[in-house]
């Protein structure tokens, strides 16, 4: 299941913290970034790897005991030797503070990734991901063993491990059924009650869920690709403690299998879960199967404290006494706190990268892209100037892809804190599904290659002028179906006005396009406006108003199929991209049995360029050199996931 990248507000499993953060403070970095872009654009297209702060090569970590990962920006914190007790402080941004405390997170709040971190620390998903920065389940942190498929992939059997709630009672399969039944009741009440709900998919596709001790059996409505169902659907599975099966404070436990009771339970839990003033005091939320238990919550600021769950059943319990999550009104305020040394762990915004050397003496600064892809989207249905016919030609999309200077963008716009990405499954972060062509740019930056493609297909290229079709027709060296002679390469492109990188990339692209006689009129707008209007499925009256748009991109689930994004009729197929080959490959990814189906899908889309793929920006963290832990406990933070039980204060 994909989720949207862009700045607030959006909806999805793991929206991009980096972009949310950048949207707060864009003025300071905009000019410098644009200047750097110009300089970068003048450079070559040498592939760029992430580099460290102050120009330190990421491939040579400065701290000998700090582990290293290829492609990492900066240096990871030390493993070191833990001490016990103390407080670890971590920053979060006001505006993205938790406002809900139950795993059935409403759609209106599901864009705030910190809500997931907050909830997951007390109510763990059954299957935990990622494993460090690798996009796969971490079996040691998962409450259940890997699922077993039978009955032609229509039955899933899940065996829970011997984990316990903080009350001392075991986490059982019945607790998972409780979650599913209450979730179904929530969705029946309103589709907006669960942010990760897509009609027809989980939990609609679970015909029945039965529990027997530690064994959960799901009967599905149809057969799914096990890879898809495991990585894209079961990641939504949680367990609810039996004490939550009530409809009032201190009420008797209700049989949640009865839909009316499940609804009563949901209504009560929902009323409590959105009451921020009682997050720290309500006994319901003191029951945890995660590594932490909530201690206090400040409803005004959204700051909160947690203490380690002494009964946590996972492989590692926190060795410190208190986790304090502090709120900041801006990325600059958070960076000020890092400079002052009053914060142990904090995010670093791109606008602060030029001055990051101020904190590298006392903090380990590192980053990696989150899992997903960014891109400039085409509107294949826009009839203005025959754009629909123009853009349906693969050679046109290939020519345009040659005008994306990924290396220049990484170096100039992102100051090295980004990774080049050529398809829906980029090479970073690592995914077991990455196709072979994920690591090599099929369309490296080259205006001459772009011009050559156009010239060889019947266009008269006028650098700096107006390229027009001079050989109409459908032959191999002609413009293509529906493109009359004299048609100019001329259209519009919208881009989000925040973060600044969106505009910088779009301007650089339009500038490169001008060099081959393509005239792109640029228009900036708010993110909300773009997703509301540059969106063929939900804004059909605007179909002929936009040709291209750059609002960001989508995060991916562990199973990175582009189902719903690039299949015909997909609900998020923004520009009505249509390819029968893609449709077949996507169908196989979701409903077939081939474990390599999704890699094949990604491989095809990488070369078919349904969007112009862009570099993936890093999510950058600064961790005090007083704090250490295993690499995975810090790497997963770049994927919007916290495992604070892995962190500790160093001796």
């Amino acid at each position, binding site marked *: 299941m994909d989720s949207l990248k862009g700045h607030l507000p959006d909806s999805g499993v793991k929206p991009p913290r980096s972009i949310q953060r950048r949207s707060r403070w864009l003025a300071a970095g905009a000019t410098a970034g644009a200047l750097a872009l110009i300089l970068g654009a003048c450079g070559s297209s040498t592939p760029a790897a992430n580099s460290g702060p102050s120009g330190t090569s990421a491939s040579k970590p400065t701290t000998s005991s700090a582990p290293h990962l290829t492609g990492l920006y900066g240096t990871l914190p030390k493993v070191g030797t833990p001490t016990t007790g103390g407080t670890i402080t971590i920053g979060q941004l006001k505006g993205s503070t938790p406002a809900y405390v139950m795993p059935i997170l409403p759609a209106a709040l599901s864009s705030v990734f910190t809500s997931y971190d907050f909830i997951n620390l007390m109510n763990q998903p059954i299957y935990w991901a990622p494993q460090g920065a690798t996009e796969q389940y971490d079996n040691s942190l998962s409450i259940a063993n890997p699922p077993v498929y039978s009955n032609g992939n229509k039955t899933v059997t899940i065996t829970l491990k011997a984990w316990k709630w903080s009350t001392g009672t075991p986490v059982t399969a019945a607790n998972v059924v409780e979650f599913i039944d209450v979730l179904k009741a929530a969705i029946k009440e309103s589709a907006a009650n669960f942010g990760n709900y897509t009609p027809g998919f989980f939990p609609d596709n679970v015909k029945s869920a039965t529990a027997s001790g530690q064994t959960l059996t799901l009967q599905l409505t149809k057969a799914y690709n096990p890879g898809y169902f495991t990585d894209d659907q079961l990641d939504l599975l949680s367990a609810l403690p039996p004490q939550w099966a009530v409809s009032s404070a201190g009420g008797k436990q209700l049989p949640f299998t009865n839909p009316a009771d499940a609804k009563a339970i949901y209504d009560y839990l929902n009323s409590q879960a959105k009451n921020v003033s009682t997050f720290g005091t309500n006994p319901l939320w003191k029951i945890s199967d995660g590594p932490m238990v909530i201690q206090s919550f400040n409803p*005004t600021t959204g700051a909160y404290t947690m203490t380690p769950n002494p009964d946590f059943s996972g492989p590692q319990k926190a060795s410190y006494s208190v986790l304090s999550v502090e709120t900041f009104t801006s990325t600059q305020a958070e960076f000020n706190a890092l400079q002052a040394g009053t914060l142990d762990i904090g995010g670093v915004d791109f606008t602060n990268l030029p001055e990051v050397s101020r904190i590298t003496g006392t903090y380990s600064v590192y980053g990696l892209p989150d899992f997903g892809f960014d891109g400039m989207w085409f509107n294949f249905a826009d009839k203005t100037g025959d754009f629909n016919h123009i853009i349906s030609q693969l050679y046109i999309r290939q020519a345009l892809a040659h005008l994306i200077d990924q290396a220049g963008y990484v170096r100039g716009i992102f100051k090295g804190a980004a990774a080049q990405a050529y398809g829906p499954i980029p090479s970073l972060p690592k995914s077991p599904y990455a196709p072979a062509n994920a690591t090599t740019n099929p369309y490296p930056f080259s205006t001459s290659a772009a011009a050559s493609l156009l010239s060889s297909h019947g266009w008269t290229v006028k650098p700096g002028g107006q390229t027009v079709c001079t050989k109409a027709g459908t032959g191999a060296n002609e413009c293509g179906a529906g493109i009359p002679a004299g048609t100019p390469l001329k259209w519009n492109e919208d881009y989000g006005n925040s973060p600044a990188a969106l505009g910088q990339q779009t301007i650089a692209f339009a500038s490169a396009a001008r060099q081959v006689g393509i005239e792109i009129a640029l228009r900036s707008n708010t993110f909300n406006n773009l997703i509301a209007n540059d969106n063929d499925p939900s804004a059909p009256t605007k179909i002929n108003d936009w040709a291209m748009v750059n609002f960001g991109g989508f995060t991916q689930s562990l199973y990175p199929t582009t189902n719903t994004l690039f299949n015909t009729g997909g609900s998020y197929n923004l520009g009505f991209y249509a390819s029968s080959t893609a449709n077949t490959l996507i169908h196989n990814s979701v409903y077939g049995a081939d474990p390599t189906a999704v890699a094949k899908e990604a491989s095809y889309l990488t070369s078919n360029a349904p969007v112009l793929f862009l570099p993936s920006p890093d999510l950058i963290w600064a961790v005090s050199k007083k704090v250490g832990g295993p690499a995975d406990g810090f790497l997963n933070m770049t994927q919007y996931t916290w495992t604070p039980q892995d962190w500790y204060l160093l001796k």
Partner: protein
Amino acid sequence: MTTYIVKQLLAALIVVIGVTMITFGLLHVISSSPGRAVLGLRASLQAVAAFNRAHGYDKPIYIQYVRYLGQLVQGNLGYSYKEGQSVANLIKENLARSAYLSGAAITLAILLSFPVGIWQAYKRNSISDYTVTAVAFTLYSMPTFFLGLLLIDFLALRLGWFPVEAAQQTNILAVIANIHAMFLPIITLTAVQMAAYSRYMRSSALDNLAQDYIRLARAKGLSERAVLTRHLFRNSSLAMITLIGLSIPALLAGNLITESLFNYPGLGFLFFTALQNEDYPVLLAITLMGAIAVVVGNLIADIAITVADPRVRL
């Protein structure tokens, strides 16, 4: 006076209703389907429809507006679906903090700028006047965020005299008591406002210094100190009253930049966040408060002028 106030209040009511209509209309022009903006691109059509239905956004705009007014009359400002709290509660939590920050800064700016402006006028065209003018122009033209960053960098990070953050307590009394932490944000706001006020005060004092009553006072043999404090100060202050009255909305709206920079959540920041989140109930409530504050500020300024200047009758 009473008739004037009643008339002004009636006019204010019309203005406030007009503001609500315009704000309401503009918000719906920007996004006719808040559900899409709030839930995001990935949200299903069913979820968007359910959200719009639950919040009444599926109804015609005039019905939504009438319903909104009805709730408003009952004192219900709505519920923020992004903050998870009632709007009234959000405003209650943030109002005092913003009012304190802006109020302290405005008060300090007034206390400092009045004597500075008069002194500059008295010493006009002297080196000291030029120096203060240069400083005032520099501060006035300096963006607040830049001044704040400079103060943080020098006074907090390099010298360590002050913390980088404003007071983090939620109790307003505790915030007020924490002068050490509030010093930098208040001074940042004060400096910019003082620069503006002192220029107005200097200009007003220069005008008054040329008046006959000043010459008469001197001719009567009053000391220069008495001329300045008793006659010049009062008469020069009249022009400032309107300016200060117009500053009252800032007490409520807070100061977004300063709040953001010094990690001090208040109404300004709440409004900014609501704007990003398309959190309609919060946007409408704060806009409404701003409109009321402007009207009240003007009214207070008018009344204050009649008190300060007996020649003025409303």
